[in-house]
């Protein structure tokens, strides 16, 4: 209920209260409802280091690596399940994914899927985890108690980035080789819509209202913007070379896109759909996630083995954190732990 209210307040752009007031109102409501304030929860970033076979855990308060967890199988994808304090790490060479306990930073178990596990995402209720298989052209759906396979959904060629709608009704997937995005009904596990985007879409990002999809097209060097309703194409924005993934910040007003071959992050104004800046980051920037505060953006740099932290307000680099070789962190990799 509270979440819905929050979304409505942010969504309704016609309401002429200033946004500070609105945010204040939401916090008051959350406190009144007995929900712990967002400010007191600690947030951690989980960075998969593909070449080192481990995951660096960054405490975002100090921006320091506080733990390094061994995860064999060339870890790539990261998904967080805030409800169950779990982090899922896809391991393409390990034929599945590892479940990391976010409370003690230990690997709880390994789940075998098939041999091209890459993209991974959890639903918002934390009940299901979705694993896209790059080779098998499908998405495996697991429940998050015993990690039993619920079903397998056939999708387009080389599914990669995914996102789940705020109400857990829809799953969106970028089909890299098909140059398309599909919308999947999570009640029936059937594809409802498919739309062509740019060439080789990879990372897929959904805004917090579940209205818009942003997908980074690796080969056409641009970002496609779609509405979730009917997957209509809203626009396309040219970015740097070989964009990999994106993340939204400042109440979805800015989109940050990693340009793998340019050592930069493109900043896009989501109102005007124009690139307003390119920020220099580490070499081969790949995975990107926004802190729950909505104001700091974390970028994993594959070549440098570092994470760059960007201040979304000033559009400057706050710090660079040494992680491990081949930092990839493809997916949502920051979560709060109460």
């Amino acid at each position, binding site marked *: 209920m509270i979440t819905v209210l929050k979304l409505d307040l942010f969504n309704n752009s016609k309401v002429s209260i200033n946004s500070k007031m609105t945010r204040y109102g939401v916090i008051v409501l959350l406190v009144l409802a007995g929900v712990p304030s967002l400010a007191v929860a600690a947030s951690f970033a989980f960075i998969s280091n*593909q*070449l080192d076979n481990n995951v660096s855990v960054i405490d975002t308060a100090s921006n320091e690596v506080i733990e390094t967890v061994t995860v064999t199988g*060339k870890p*790539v994808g990261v998904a967080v399940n805030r409800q169950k304090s779990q982090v899922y790490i896809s391991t*393409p*060479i390990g*034929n599945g994914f590892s479940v990391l306990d976010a409370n003690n930073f230990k690997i709880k178990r390994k789940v075998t899927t098939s*041999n*091209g596990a*890459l993209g991974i995402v959890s639903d918002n209720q934390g009940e299901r985890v979705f694993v896209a298989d*790059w*080779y098998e052209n499908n998405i495996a759906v697991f429940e998050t108690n015993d990690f039993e396979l619920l079903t397998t959904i056939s999708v387009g060629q080389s599914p990669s980035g995914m996102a789940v709608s705020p109400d857990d009704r829809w799953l969106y997937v970028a089909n890299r080789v098909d140059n398309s995005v599909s919308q999947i009904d999570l009640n029936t596990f059937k594809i409802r819509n498919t739309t062509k985007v740019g060439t080789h879409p990879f990372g897929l990002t959904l805004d917090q209202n579940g209205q818009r999809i942003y997908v980074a097209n690796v080969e056409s060097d641009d970002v496609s913007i779609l509405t979730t309703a009917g997957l209509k194409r809203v626009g396309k924005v040219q970015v740097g070379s*070989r964009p990999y993934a994106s993340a939204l910040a400042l109440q979805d007003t800015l989109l940050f896109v990693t340009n793998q*071959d*340019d*050592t930069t992050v493109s900043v896009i104004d989501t109102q005007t759909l124009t690139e307003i800046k390119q920020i220099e980051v580490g*070499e*081969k920037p790949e995975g990107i996630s926004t802190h729950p505060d909505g104001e700091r953006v974390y970028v994993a740099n*594959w*070549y440098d083995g570092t994470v760059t932290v960007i201040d979304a307000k000033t559009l400057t680099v706050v710090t660079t954190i040494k992680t491990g*070789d*081949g930092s990839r962190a493809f997916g949502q990799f920051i979560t709060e732990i109460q």
Partner: protein
Amino acid sequence: MKQVSVVLSILFFIFMSTAQAHGPVRGKLTAKVKINAPAEKVWAIIKNFDDMSWHPSIAGTDAKGGNKKKATRILTLKGGGTITEQLKAYKADKMSYKYKITDMSTVKTITHAGKDEIVPVLPVSNYAATLSVKGKGGSSEVKWVATYYRGYLNNNPPSELNEDAADKAVTAVLKAGLANLLGKFQSGAKDSAIKFKVKR
């Protein structure tokens, strides 16, 4: 007996297909060599993006844009074929430059999994590399780091386009270049002075 061998060969087949079912994971190949000469002198030989004459496998360099970002060069290989590269970053103060391959000539076309597959002159995809020199007292260390995917990005690559083929080809390019550079300062130096590390 026959049944046993059938079972064994099936098991072997399953093992082989699992073993080859590597995801296309980007590799990072690092080549390093120590040279008994000041860094500035070594850098002077390799610093110009439009001049690859220090590499013994390159017959000619057709370049545009000097050492400016986005400059291009077309390398003609002595063994035949061309590689087109773009300069991505140039740091004179750090004695380092970074470039990527944007185009390559085709060696041959093979049929794999019912489809025609092109084998480029360097059997890799999305290749980028950084060449740099660091001073260490009166001597220097040259580091050449290449990052690339194997040539075939789908499952079960043909032998011409797998990780081994990519690593071998890239190693050969880096080795020939660094060995020649080393030889300019230390005649008779052994190729084993060049250290390689592949991470994938």
